[in-house]
Structure formats: structure tokens, C-alpha cells
């Protein structure tokens, strides 16, 4: 099976990026240095190719009700020109995908989903549309996507767009132009910094990248994307949330809404978990000895395994190793001393508060 390329593939190669397979795409993991790219986002601005992600358009008079049925968040909290983060869950409360949908009009929504779940999400939508008057259009390959993130992203981007960015609050979006290139721009992001996510037709890809790059922002790859989101403690599908983990176990209590009088898939299990608590919960991890926390490492407390690491790595901002883990509720208190098994060696660590970093 051949790996897919985004419209920015040649640009990545020209910049000397190291390309790796990711969700069926050849993506840049780094250009020169993951740490440098990470720091550029924290200190100035970075550009991420997120064209591998999925983008759907949902249209029809029943879109609102359909989304209320398949999403755990409450669309009554939405408004036109605003987006909402949600999980789509199975009956047993575990997660199909986490995603963001944007209300363009009450009968037209744009949805951005994880690259790894595009086919699965489309299938789920089609399987549950039933009698709802909704049309789903898959724009994933017709449009390009870039994230522009960092403390200077507002100032740098304002020079390029014809809309007043100060009027777009977090999670709100607009259709506007970036130097004559029509774009969809939302104040959302996955880095823990202020920033935007932009979507546009493929034919504008090179021009839009060029303008963004000319601001002095640093191209950043998947390596930095992961270290940034880990510091901010944003869930990564397949790690903190998955088809074996519920949003409540992942600490996303606020996502599970009562939605009284509205039936949604997973409602019963999720509301029960919300009121009764879960048996395991996501916690932050630090080491007390030298080493680097890695994904899937077992977590022990007094010689008993109490959980495992969902995501681990090095934090360039904190200059130490950090991690997230799913552990038994009774051992999840902050400052609990634990041991993490890293490649057959037990390393002392402790449970710490999260997030490690946020600057939104």
C-alpha cells in the first residue's frame, strides 16, 4: 500500500524534513530539531502541516439533532461561527474519536477528525444517520490544513488576513482571505499556546504556506506536535482516549454533558460513570530518578502494578521527563510515589498535577 502525501510534501522535502509514515501519510517528524521546533512554538510561532487530518461537511435540516445524538457534548452550547470539542462514543462509553465541529449555519457543520480515524468516523456517521436528513461530504483530500501556533501568532497572522483576529475568540472561526487566498480560520489548537488552525482548498496550499513561512514562523513537525500537546496534556487518540478508555477515565469530565431529554450514544454509561466515578483515572507523571518515561511502561505501587503510561517523553519547556498514565483510582493522589518500569528497570517516580503547561 503506497503512503499518501499532503500538498506540502515537496515543501517538507526541500526544507530537509525527515519524513515518516503516519496514519497512511508520509509526514515530517522534524525538519532540523524537535526541540528547536518545540521551543519556536513556545517562544514565537510554528507552522504545522495537518493536512492528513479528516475534514467533513455535514449539511441538512437534521444536522443539529444528528450531532446531538452521536456526540457527548451539548450543541445547545454552540452558536454560529463557533466550534466545539467533543468525543464520539460507543454505547459502552469508550471513544470512537475526539474531534471538533464548527457551526457554519444551523444546517451546515464542518468537522475535523483524527487522520487515523477518518474511515472509521465516516462509517460511524453513515451507520447512524438513519432517518436524519443529513448529507456527509468528505473533504479530507480536497482541502489542505495548517496550524499556526505560538504567542506571536496573532500579530504575525494579522498582517496577512483581512479579518480582525481580536474579534475571533477561542473556539470561534471565520471565513476570510489570507492575502487573496480564501481560508477557513479557527482559533483552536493542540499545542497549549495561542494560535489558529486554517483550512483551504488545495490549490492555495503553496501560496498560503509561503505567506506563513515568510512571517518568520518555524515549520514544525509531528515530533514537536507531540511534545507540545503532551506538555499541555491534550489527549491523543489511541493513548489517553481509545476504544477501551472512556472520556471520564481520561479526565474529560466536562465533556460528558447531561443533555436532559436528549438521547445520545453512550449517555447511560457515561452519566453513571460521571456520578459514581471511574475505577481508573488519568494522572500526570514525573520521575524522581534519571530516565525518560515512555509509552506503555507499567506503573507500580508497592510492587503491584496499578496502571500504565499512556504517553511519555521529554519536555523541552520543563527540561525534564513527563508522562501521562492511567492508574487505579485509589492510588491516583498527587504526590503518590510510584515506580515506572522502563525497559526492565524500575525507576522511582511520582504522580503530579496536570497540565504541565498551558499558555492559552
Amino acid at each position, binding site marked *: 500500500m503506497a503512503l499518501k502525501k499532503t500538498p506540502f510534501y515537496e515543501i517538507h522535502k526541500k526544507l530537509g524534513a525527515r519524513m515518516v509514515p503516519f496514519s497512511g501519510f508520509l509526514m515530517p517528524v*522534524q525538519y532540523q530539531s524537535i526541540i528547536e521546533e518545540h521551543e519556536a512554538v513556545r517562544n514565537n510561532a510554528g507552522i504545522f502541516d495537518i493536512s492528513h487530518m479528516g475534514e467533513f461537511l455535514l449539511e441538512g435540516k437534521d444536522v443539529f439533532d444528528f450531532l446531538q445524538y452521536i456526540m457527548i457534548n451539548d450543541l445547545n452550547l454552540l452558536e454560529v461561527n463557533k466550534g466545539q470539542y467533543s468525543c464520539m462514543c460507543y454505547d459502552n462509553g469508550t471513544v470512537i474519536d475526539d474531534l471538533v465541529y464548527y457551526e457554519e449555519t444551523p444546517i451546515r457543520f464542518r468537522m475535523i477528525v483524527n487522520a487515523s480515524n477518518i474511515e472509521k468516523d465516516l462509517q460511524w456517521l453513515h451507520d447512524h444517520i438513519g432517518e436524519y436528513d443529513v448529507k456527509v461530504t468528505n473533504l479530507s483530500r480536497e482541502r489542505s490544513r495548517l496550524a499556526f501556533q505560538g504567542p506571536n501568532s496573532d500579530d504575525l497572522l494579522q498582517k496577512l488576513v483581512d479579518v480582525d483576529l481580536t474579534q475571533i475568540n477561542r473556539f470561534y472561526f471565520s471565513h476570510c482571505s489570507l492575502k487573496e487566498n480564501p481560508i477557513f480560520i479557527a482559533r483552536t489548537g493542540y499545542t497549549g499556546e495561542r494560535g489558529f488552525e486554517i483550512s483551504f482548498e488545495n490549490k492555495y496550499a503553496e501560496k498560503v504556506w509561503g505567506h506563513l513561512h515568510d512571517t518568520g514562523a518555524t515549520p514544525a513537525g509531528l515530533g514537536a506536535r507531540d*511534545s507540545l500537546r503532551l506538555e499541555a496534556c491534550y489527549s491523543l487518540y489511541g493513548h489517553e482516549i481509545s476504544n477501551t478508555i472512556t472520556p471520564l477515565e481520561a479526565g474529560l469530565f466536562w465533556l460528558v454533558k447531561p443533555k436532559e431529554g436528549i438521547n445520545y450514544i453512550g449517555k447511560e454509561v457515561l452519566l453513571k460513570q460521571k456520578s459514581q466515578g471511574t475505577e481508573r483515572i488519568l494522572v500526570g507523571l514525573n520521575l524522581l530518578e*534519571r530516565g*525518560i518515561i515512555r509509552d506503555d511502561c507499567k506503573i507500580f505501587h508497592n510492587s503491584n502494578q496499578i496502571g500504565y503510561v499512556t504517553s511519555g*517523553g*521529554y519536555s523541552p519547556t520543563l527540561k525534564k521527563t513527563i508522562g501521562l498514565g492511567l492508574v487505579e483510582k485509589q492510588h491516583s493522589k498527587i504526590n503518590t510515589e510510584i515506580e515506572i518500569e522502563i*525497559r526492565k528497570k524500575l525507576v522511582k517516580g511520582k504522580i503530579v498535577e496536570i497540565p504541565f503547561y498551558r499558555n492559552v
Partner: protein
Amino acid sequence: MDYKFPKELKYTVTHEWVLLEDDIAIVGITDFAQHQLGDIVYVEMPDIGMVFERESNAGEIESVKAVGEIIMPLSGEIIETNSKVIDNPELVNSSPFEEGWIMKIKISHKDEVENLITVEEYIKVVESEEL
């Protein structure tokens, strides 16, 4: 890609370099190796006094995304490890042949030096891995 290949050093096919000074060998990883690993964030050094056989695993070098093994180029006793690298692992990226040296070995079997490869042979190893 332009990597540095100092001529005065000996090499291994597992990307270590060796500087021989009588029966002491100073060991590190090559410019190619540090580039493959990416930003190095942690080095697991062997303990001083430990004795290892040639080709055994003496320690680990961790980058953001990968873990590499430090393979003993020669049998012997670890007599010193680079404390600067312990505190600043990125030295292995910025100065793999100088400030980023990893450890010093007291060689136990001098004849094993014959197993080390020359710079020309090592360049060929890198070229074949790059294909």
C-alpha cells in the same frame, strides 16, 4: 548529507568511534549516529568499575523519539564517564567527537583493536545505510 568523519579515529559498524591512547580507549558515537537519533535528551552511562565484553550493551542514548544502545567497541573496564554529557546530553549532538565523548575504557584484550574499522570502511557503512 555531510557528516564528519575524523581520520584519526577508529570506528565500529554500530556507529561508535574510538580514540586509542595505549591501553585506554575513549569512546563516543559518531556524527551520523547523533544525526539519526535526533535531539538527545538522556544518556544512561555504565557504572565506573564495571567490566564488559566487546559488542555487549554498555548503556543507552535516548533522543526525543528513539533509544540507541552504546555497544562496547572493545572488552574492558569502565574507568571514566563524561559527567558533562550526563548533565548536558545535547553535547552528543553538537560535539559528538569532542565534548560529547561518552566513556573511557581500560582495554583488556589489545588484540581486539584489529576488529575496529578504519574511517574509509566506516564511511562505506554509512553510505550503505543511507541508501
